[in-house]
């Protein structure tokens, strides 16, 4: 049950999301064109409209735990069709940053894990080593043999080299500094 009392704090979360994302969610008509457009909206993933509805309703916890923004691949389809030009992937970033700052546990740990491994790889070497990141992910999620068959095929065809899966590679100190500088500022 949502119990509203008219306190100004009720809208604090909404305004924070609006400010961080630069998107005017108060314009939202709740027409649902975004969720209809969204490739990942499904029975289980609510889609942008309901996420916005939750933010507008001040349902902060529910919004931060909503799977939608974890799933968001920033395809931009909803943004292009939205009658009030709300860009949802900007909202997703804002929610991710708020969740991170407030220590909310990722509701989609596997997506989170992959993205984290990915960024670690960037931080370490400046460029991401895809296969390495994928292998690490598969190991960490206890599916070491996921996509083994196509992987082997690709190796067989010479498309990829098994060496690329091994850890290692050079480093890019400049990129590492970008990470640390931005971390400092926060």
């Amino acid at each position, binding site marked *: 049950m949502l119990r509203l009392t008219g306190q100004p704090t009720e809208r604090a979360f909404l305004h924070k999301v609006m400010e*961080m994302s630069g998107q005017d969610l108060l314009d939202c008509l709740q027409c649902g064109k975004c969720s209809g457009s969204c*490739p*990942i909206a*499904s029975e289980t993933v609510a889609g942008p409209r309901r996420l916005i509805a939750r933010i507008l309703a001040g349902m902060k916890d529910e919004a931060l735990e909503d799977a939608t*923004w974890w*799933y*968001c*691949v*920033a*395809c*931009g*389809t909803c*943004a*292009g069709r939205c009658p009030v*030009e709300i*860009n949802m*992937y900007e909202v*997703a*970033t*804002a929610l*991710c*940053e708020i969740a*991170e700052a407030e220590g909310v546990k990722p509701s*989609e740990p*596997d*997506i989170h*894990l*992959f*993205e*984290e491994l*990915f*960024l670690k790889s*960037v931080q370490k070497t*400046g*460029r*991401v*080593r*895809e*296969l390495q*990141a*994928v292998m690490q*992910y598969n190991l960490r999620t206890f599916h070491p043999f*996921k*996509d083994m068959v*196509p992987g082997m*095929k*690709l190796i067989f*065809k*010479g*498309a*990829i080299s098994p060496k*690329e899966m091994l850890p290692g590679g050079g480093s*890019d100190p*400049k*990129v590492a500094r*970008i*990470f640390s*500088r*931005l971390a400092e*500022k926060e």
Partner: protein
Amino acid sequence: MKASYYPGCSLEGTAKPYDHSSRAVCEALGIGLEDIPDWSCCGSSPALKMNKDLSTALAAHNLALSETQSVEDVVIPCPFCFRRLLSAQAELAADPDLKARIEGAVEAEIQGTTGIHSLLGFLAERVGADGVRKKVQRPLKGLRVAPYYGCYLVKPHDVTGFDDPENPTSMDDLLTALGAETVDWDFKTECCGAGLAVSKTETVRDLCRRIVAEAVHQKADAVVVACQLCQANLDMRQDGGAMPVLYFTQLMGLAFGMSAKDLGLKHHLASPMKMLKAKGIVS
């Protein structure tokens, strides 16, 4: 014509055929590509999702590097890298505070004057169908292809400013110029699931299956893409594994008379070789 070239991480990894064919095609078209020195990852979707400033900074870092080159345009085969760099440049221009913050993080000043192009956009606008047609040595007669643009090239339109997000045609024009026949279908910009491929494989499989099924229904011989992630997803996550998913640069290379091997056509899971042989395009 000269341009700076930003391959992006994938083109060093799983998408070498895209990299090789892109470089070869540009060379054939007289476009001198010069790699951005010491380029780094643009942050891709993980950075965009998890840390806005980091995402902007990583893109800005590469913008700054490209500004050290003596070329006006950056050409980017990877659509996500393209959109990130383009978007970051616009964000910096619009917000002086952000610019100051990011310039501090990347230890460089950013002029923001670089012309940022996707490879497809660059070829469509600067070379055009007529320019491509002139280079064709082996027209792709009899080849019916389904052009697939994916999301990041065209969406959101106010960010990329390229082609029509619902029904783009620039790749169609290039492929037609090669002598191929293109399928007029409605899945040109339906999402393949992109970066969810590793963590939410089933979601991606559902999306890709549907796209390839429609290509089959339209009697396409191959799906043609301009994105390595689209290629990987569609190639790996389709049913039956019979629908070749090729880079548009590979087809350009073929039409320009390059060999299937050099273009990496043998590296795909769904092999196009049998089909291409049957059409007499490769021997």
